């Protein structure tokens, strides 16, 4: 299947911002019909590489050396007009965020047509059939009707399919896919990856796949190149790479993938949190008098239990109501019905002030480390806030001692107290968020996707930290995640949520190895796994 013909070759490509080199002379070749994976963490320069190939770099960045040869053409020697005919026609690109890549005020059909008209001479009758066949190819049902739809009417996965259709419209030889599935749910990711794989086979298309997810790489790629800080550390055939990684960093990346068969034993501690038939409904209101005409049932009757010192993972795709449920336990969302018992005490009926003493016991860590801290407060103020308002420690000097100890514990320096959040990286911020939650000595921490915004190797460290803290302090964790792959070595028990209800729950081992519900099975199958045993 793979011919030896080279489609794209990059020689000693260098990109810098001013005097600061960002891509430091990388070289690679992509052969026809091959999926070439460029792997690296955020900031490693992989997206810059793809943008330089397309000559779409922002103005502040300059290509300082190297050349890119596409077929017979040297890309950097083309004029801008010549380049325009290469872009889209010969090399096409799909982006990470399908939500923002489509124009919201034009129908899908119009946007697809635009690409075709621009690059191909095609008459009106052929155009329609071509559009329909394109949509069929990328697996959009009822293509004729969908052409008249606006982007907001489509789901995220469908939008990404449309993006792929647009990219394929002019039959390019090379497809640059910049993190095409990062913004999508696992099951959708699976479909898109399958689609890319099929297209590669049917069209003999070369794909430059940029990703940070080693699972995706293991499954898709023919050749792998690992990038770090603007350099390619290692480049190898996919099988050889995973069997025998050469570079230290590559080993770390591969090892950061949690093993799927490493489960934690379940303990039989007394229960800490008991949730029974919890319903979080949001009223739909209409008319001048704001009459309630119905409810959006975000969480519709879930029951579960978290034991002391135990981690319960709530797994589900976006929109399944898992975050809403977490916020309802924290009383950040109103509870419609059901009971929440904490250490045997009913919490759901309490008023705002009655609930206040319990705020100390239940804390939260959010998903986005950038929005979870007030950018105008120093780390000291951020951590101190809860301790002051919940009256954990009245003495300012003792508070300072506690804060210093906490920062050291989560792997930061006491000097960091007087810095501001923007001076920290995502992983460090998440550590601050953990310190903030721990400062009030809670018994339960609700972790709302705390690692999904982090790079793989950092993700491993943060999860490790949470594990250690649980062993030291005996804190219970309610871990909300969409990522099944991190569950095994993290959680004692798992509950799978879909459309506001829990479809299956049990010990991690039981759910992961012998899933009973078909949705769980689908989820497990969709996870791109390294070790597909």
């Amino acid at each position, binding site marked *: 299947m793979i011919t030896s013909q080279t489609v794209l070759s990059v020689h000693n490509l260098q990109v810098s911002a001013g005097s600061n080199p960002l891509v430091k002379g990388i070289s690679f070749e992509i052969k026809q019909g091959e999926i070439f994976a460029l792997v690296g963490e955020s900031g490693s320069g992989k997206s810059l590489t793809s943008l330089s190939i397309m000559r779409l770099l922002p103005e502040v960045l300059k290509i300082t050396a190297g050349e890119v040869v596409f077929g017979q053409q040297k890309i950097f020697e083309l004029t801008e007009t010549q380049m325009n005919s290469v872009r889209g026609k010969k090399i096409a690109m799909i982006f990470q965020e399908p939500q923002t890549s489509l124009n919201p005020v034009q129908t899908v059909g119009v946007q697809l047509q635009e690409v075709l008209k621009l690059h191909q001479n095609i008459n009106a009758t052929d155009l329609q059939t071509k559009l329909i066949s394109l949509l069929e190819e990328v697996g959009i049902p009822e293509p004729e009707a969908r052409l008249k739809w606006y982007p907001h009417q489509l789901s995220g996965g469908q939008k990404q399919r449309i993006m792929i259709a647009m990219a394929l419209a002019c039959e390019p030889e090379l497809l640059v896919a910049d993190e095409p599935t990062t913004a999508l749910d696992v099951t959708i990711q699976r479909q898109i990856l399958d689609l890319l794989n099929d297209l590669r086979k049917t069209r003999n298309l070369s794909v430059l796949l940029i990703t940070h997810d080693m699972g995706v790489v293991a499954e898709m790629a023919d050749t792998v190149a690992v990038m770090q800080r603007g350099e390619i550390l290692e480049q190898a055939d996919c099988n050889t790479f995973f069997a025998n990684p050469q570079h230290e960093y590559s080993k770390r990346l591969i090892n950061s993938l949690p093993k799927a068969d490493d489960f934690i034993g379940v303990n039989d501690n007394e229960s800490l949190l008991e949730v029974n038939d919890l319903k979080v409904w949001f009223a739909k209101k209409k008319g001048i008098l704001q009459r309630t005409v119905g409810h959006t049932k975000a969480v519709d009757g879930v029951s579960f239990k978290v034991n002391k010192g135990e981690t319960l993972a709530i797994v589900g795709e976006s929109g399944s109501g898992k975050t809403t449920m977490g*916020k309802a336990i*924290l009383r*950040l969302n109103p509870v419609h019905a059901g009971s929440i018992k904490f250490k045997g005490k009913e919490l759901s009926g309490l008023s705002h002030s009655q609930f*206040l003493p319990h*705020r*100390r016991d*239940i*804390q*939260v860590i*959010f*998903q*986005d480390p*950038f*929005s*979870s*801290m*007030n*950018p*105008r*407060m120093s780390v000291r*103020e951020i951590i101190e*806030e*809860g301790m002051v*308002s*919940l009256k954990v420690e009245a003495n300012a000097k003792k508070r300072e001692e506690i804060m210093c100890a906490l920062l050291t514990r989560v792997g930061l320096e006491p000097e960091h107290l007087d810095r*501001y959040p*923007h001076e920290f990286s995502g992983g460090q911020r998440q550590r601050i*968020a953990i310190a*903030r939650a721990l400062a*009030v000595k809670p018994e339960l921490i609700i972790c709302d996707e705390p690692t999904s915004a982090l790079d793989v190797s950092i993700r491993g460290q943060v999860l490790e930290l949470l594990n250690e803290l649980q062993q030291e302090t005996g804190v219970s964790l309610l871990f909300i995640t969409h990522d099944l792959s991190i569950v095994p070595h993290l959680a004692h028990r798992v509950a799978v949520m879909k459309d506001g209800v829990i479809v299956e729950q049990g010990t991690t081992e039981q759910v992961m190895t012998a899933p009973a519900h078909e949705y769980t099975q689908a989820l497990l199958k969709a996870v791109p796994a390294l070790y597909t045993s």
Partner: protein
Amino acid sequence: MILPVFLWSDLLIYTLIASVGLFLWQLRKNPQAKKRWSGVFASKVGMASFIVILFYILISLLDSLHYREPLPQLNGVEQQEVAYSSEVKSVLDIVLSPLHSSNESTYSAPFALHSFAKENMTDTNGAIYRDFPRLKNAGSHLTDVRERSWDILWRSVLAILLGILIAAVPIAAHKYYRNKIAQGTADHSGSDAVPWNVAYSTVLIISVIGCWVLSLSEFYHILGTDKVGSDVLYQSIKAIRTGVLIGTLATLVTLPLAIILGISAGYFKGWVDDVVQYTYTTLSSIPGILLIAASVLLIDVYIETHAEQFNLTTLRSDFKFLALCAILGLTSWTGLCRMLRAETLKVSQLDYVQAAHAFGVSHRRVIGKHILPNVTHLILIAIVLDFSMFVLAEAVLSYIGVGVDPDMHSWGNMINAARSELSRDPVVWWSVSAAFILMFTLVLAANLFSDEVRNAFDPNTAKGDS
């Protein structure tokens, strides 16, 4: 002894200056805000426009120290009580005394020696003829009319030299001080960021223009005279106080309304939001001019019926002026309120606000610590933009006759008078031009400054962090 007069607007403006000083003092503790503000002053435009604004404010502050002079004692009569003149003067009048006292009888062009209108005159032989009479004050030191150009040139050169000299002293002192600081500390990266040279040249230009204007206006009406022969330059300088004050005071009225209502609407949502929204929708659907005109009429009636409270014309016009500020403020808070509500809606959904709720932080603290600091950029930008808007609004309102008291010097009143002046032939252009130039400089400086403030504070354009 003179009798100090404290007008309400004087007290307000000095309180305001004091609170701005206090705010700056507080700012020293906050490294982030300090960095942002130094970003504003690191830009050349920001620095220059700030100094121009400062100059205007300085003039209006000088003009806000009012007093009454005692009347000269009648000869031979021993009086128990000193009687004071009913004319309220300000410190600025001392500086501008040559302008204020040198009135002509009617219009005269800038630098003119003769009146603008012909008059009947009697020559030495007793025959009556019509010609342009010599002005009483302007150029009265000249023996020959032909000397005028040389006289102006000579005096200009002297004035400019003096202006340079006056500016050179503080600039040299400041430079010396900076060098001393730079020697003391090894790292002088911080002071290098400020474009002091721009500051120096702005100060120099202002000083030269100021000296030139002051020294020449002693001998000529450099911007001419108006219908009743009073100096236009004097009027337009006195109008600076009106412009600056209406800008700051009216903005001050809008702020608490917009901030409190906007943030509580966005934060508490529900019925609070409904009430606030209905209020500002109603208010903004009534034409602002209508409300202002109606209120000004009401105030006129109040002044008429309570004449005993306003025994001085200055008191009356000051009261009317303050009322105008209040009305302008009360009718223009809706824009900022709407923006703050939207931004608060957005900010209050962010995770850090949710985290604060999870820590049981009280609403007051959440608003004070989390919401307000993160919407400050909107408030700051609105302050500077509103300022120039109100300066212009005053001109428009005075033009249609519902603005400040006709006794009060204001650019609006000057422009209003220009309605008839511009229809004369030849045109009397200097009055409206003077008002225009001074107002234009202030509004331009304020707008440029607001641009810089926006660049530094708006999270979308701010360099570096969010």
